[in-house]
């Protein structure tokens, strides 16, 4: 199979003339639930002779407890360190020798495994994946060296990175009850102390086929994928999924503040606001609000903090998919000599302005246009599509919701935007984290 598929192109050309938003008709997904409970989603695309295979396990740091924080992420690493048929090191060697590559990521909610490979390696990849889901092996030597690798990863992404340090402190302060309070990578003392028993228990708990969703996008048909699943995946027995996380974070009733003193060139500011989980009906209005405020150089926050007041280098916001109520994080990089509190004040005023006065038609239309283009950007690679289809299935409960996003954003009104600004971006609901350079004389006004 070569590039000819693209140039057939008739399908897409027809769609283009229709002028509507592309969706299920153009990116048709086939779904099947295997007898052991694993759901498999397939989207065929012959544009390149490659396949992206993602497995989403519904287990992340929210399923951990104090003392073993970071275990889900450590486990993610161990999934590459040997099973029954493919021993330590074999998985990577065999995969790469056959033109494939892999990676994985862990969040507060899920652990996701990613394989990218030429279609010729399809059955090999299934052989590898089934081997490690069924018969993961725990070599004490590998546990020892991988512990060091993860400690190095923590030093890289947290300890020697100001954004990493501050973000960790923000979540730890904003959450007092719910497991979102600890970092995905884990506290260093926990990284140093997990036991073999902890690892085995984690595997038992999280890695049952009925706790996973597989997404395959690329140069493969649904029929051949379902056949491979019957051979390799379906015979894997199920076991009970992780216990429900029942802790509910109590409402925050007053501003919380924290300071990190650290050697640094510039200060840093993060403000977190509690918001509902991904499948909440306010999700779309929240994103439209964030787009109006933060996206692009015409956004209100950029215009105010970077362009007009010139107090920040950058001001952004983030909202990750989540099972439980989460946070919108606002990050501002103050300019040298600017008191981070000046950035805070400007940010609060801009939130207030949305809550108290109307936004314009143009702003609302702009936000919807930006969201639509973003949808196409996610859909333009087999990799992006696999991740997006899986994210919608796992966090929104149904991959079909992906194809309703344009419609759902369209339905957001100015009043919706005003309401979410008022409800969630309130002083009592925020946690403010500030990093102040220890050699701070330079950074003070």
């Amino acid at each position, binding site marked *: 199979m*070569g*590039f000819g598929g*693209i*140039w057939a*192109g008739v399908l*897409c050309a027809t769609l*283009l003339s229709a002028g509507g938003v*592309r969706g299920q008709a153009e990116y048709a997904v086939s779904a099947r639930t295997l007898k052991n409970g694993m759901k498999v989603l397939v989207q065929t*695309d012959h*544009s*390149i*002779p490659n396949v992206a295979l993602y497995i989403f396990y519904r287990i992340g740091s929210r399923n951990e407890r104090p003392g073993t924080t970071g275990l889900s992420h450590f486990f993610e690493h161990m999934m590459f360190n040997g099973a029954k048929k493919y021993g330590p*090191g074999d998985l*990577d*060697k065999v995969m*790469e*020798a*056959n*033109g494939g*590559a892999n*990676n994985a*990521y*862990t969040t507060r909610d899920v652990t996701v495994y990613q394989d990218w490979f*030429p279609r010729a390696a399809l059955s090999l990849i299934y052989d590898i994946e089934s081997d490690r889901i069924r018969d993961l092996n725990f070599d004490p030597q590998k546990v*020892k*060296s*991988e512990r060091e*690798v*993860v400690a*190095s990863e923590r030093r*890289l992404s947290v*300890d*020697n*990175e*100001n954004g990493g340090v501050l973000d960790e402190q923000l979540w730890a302060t904003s959450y007092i009850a719910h497991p979102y309070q600890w970092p995905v990578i884990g506290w260093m003392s926990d990284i140093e102390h997990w036991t073999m028993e902890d690892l085995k228990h984690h595997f038992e708990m999280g890695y049952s086929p009925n706790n996973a969703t597989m997404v395959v996008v690329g140069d493969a048909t649904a029929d051949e994928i379902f056949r491979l699943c019957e051979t390799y995946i379906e015979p894997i027995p199920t076991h009970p999924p992780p216990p429900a996380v029942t802790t509910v974070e109590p409402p925050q009733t007053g501003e919380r503040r924290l300071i990190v003193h650290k*050697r*640094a*060139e510039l200060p840093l500011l993060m403000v977190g606001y509690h918001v509902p989980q991904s499948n909440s009906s306010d999700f779309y209005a929240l994103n439209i609000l964030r787009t109006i405020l933060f996206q*692009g*150089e*015409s956004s209100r926050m*950029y215009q105010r903090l*970077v*362009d007009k007041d010139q107090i920040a*280098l950058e001001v952004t916001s983030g909202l990750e998919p989540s099972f439980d109520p989460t946070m919108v994080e606002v990050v501002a990089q103050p*300019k*040298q000599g600017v008191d981070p509190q000046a950035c805070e004040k400007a940010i609060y005023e801009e939130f207030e302005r949305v809550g108290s006065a109307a936004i314009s038609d143009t702003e609302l239309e*702009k936000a919807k*246009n*930006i*969201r639509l*283009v*973003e949808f*196409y*950007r996610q859909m*333009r*690679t*087999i990799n992006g599509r696999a991740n997006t289809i899986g994210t919608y299935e796992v966090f929104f409960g149904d991959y079909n919701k992906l194809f309703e996003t344009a419609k759902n954003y369209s339905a957001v009104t100015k009043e919706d935007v005003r309401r979410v600004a008022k409800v969630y971006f309130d002083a009592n609901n925020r946690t403010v984290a500030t990093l102040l350079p*220890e*050699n701070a004389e330079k950074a003070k006004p």
Partner: protein
Amino acid sequence: MRRGLRRIRRLLTVAAMVVLACTVSLAQTLHLPPHERVVLKNGLTLLLLEKRGVPLVNISAIVKAGAAADPAGEEGLAATTAGLLRKGTKKRSAQQFAADLDYIGGEFEAEAGPDFTTINMEFQTKDFARGLDLYADVLIHPAFPQQEAEKFLAQEIDGVKAAKDDPQSVMMSYYSGYLYGMHPYGHPPAGDEISLKQIRREDAAKFYATNYAPGNTILAVAGEFNAAEMKAKLSEAFGAWESRAVNSAAIPGVVPSKEKRLLLVDKPDASQTYFAIGNTGIAANDPDRVAIRVVNTIFGGRFTSELNEALRVESGYTYGAQSFFDQRKVPGPFVIFSFTKNETTTPAIDLTLQVLAKLHKEGVTQDQLKSAKSYIKGQFPPNIETSRQLARTIATHEFYGLGDDEVNELEARLDAVTPEMARQVIQKHFPAENLLFVLIGKASAIGPAVQKYAANQDTRLLSDPGFWPAPATGKK
């Protein structure tokens, strides 16, 4: 995450694209989609490529002047010129451009790499007329307003400081400065705290007038459109750009470092040491580039590479270790990069040197060659999957004088790499003795121990302005 070396790669965006475009391969059944090349009367080279899948269009221009063209003392001028394009034109203010761009959900980036500047914009096919108008406006009619220039430069200076809070993101600026010295490749692409203070709006306007001309520009457009229709519209929009003679200075040749040298950048609070080791590498058109790509894949270009196996998988010294050749007009840097906690700094560097010595002594095996070739072929197609990637690929090929064969013939070229060729490129292109070391770490903890690596050593503080070793420190 299992692999976290993305940040250093991201910093090399432009350079990395070049590497991809020049050295990777794909299965024989694969080829670049057909595309058309037209040279307009004013000298502009126009490349057109139809790509279906999502209703987006990407315009990507290469202006043949980058950071290497920055005058001494004004490092960052090419980047400043690129950054100011959107900050005001003859008919639009910066704010108006932002409003018009964001309204259509468009994305715009303009950045300077060592060899050239790229100006990239993407938008929906249905917004083509608006998008093209915006793009042509900033490329042909920038006004460089005084106030916007001042704002931009003040932000860029703070941007350098912010980058220094993340050692990975500044490693290549220190490394290039130390390796190339006063050669144009020693310029930090975004400038530094000292040089940016010297730049005025007039300098950017002059850099634009000198280098931005149709005859000095390659414009690649890829996406979902009808090429014939598109050619007419683009010819109209860019045909009006007045032609101008351009005298770009050629980038001088490169002499590899002839001695062992070590620069220690002191970050007193560091709990780990970041290290880069190497020398100069190869040019984009080096005839050995395919064989080098294969050998480097084995040595430090993938997860199961010799370096990553030794430093991560077997010893747990680090989260990742890699090596790469940044291929440019004249030889760019060859770099081995990794990091490890303070206590294991010398064991990790010793091991790195052993892996390099082993490459020279034992070469690579037949099995490794076979595996690396499969890996390169299998991982290539996603590099030319999107309109943006395709536009940049054909534009960089055009810039470096490389043809479509770079992609279309690569499988054959890969298959032709023999153990003997591998042996030769190791000897010729992978440095063995005269290595350059750049370390960012806690000097009080690692300083004495790393003295063994080079007789010539320089030190500086991370917070000292700039990236070059201060002239006063000199050799010890």
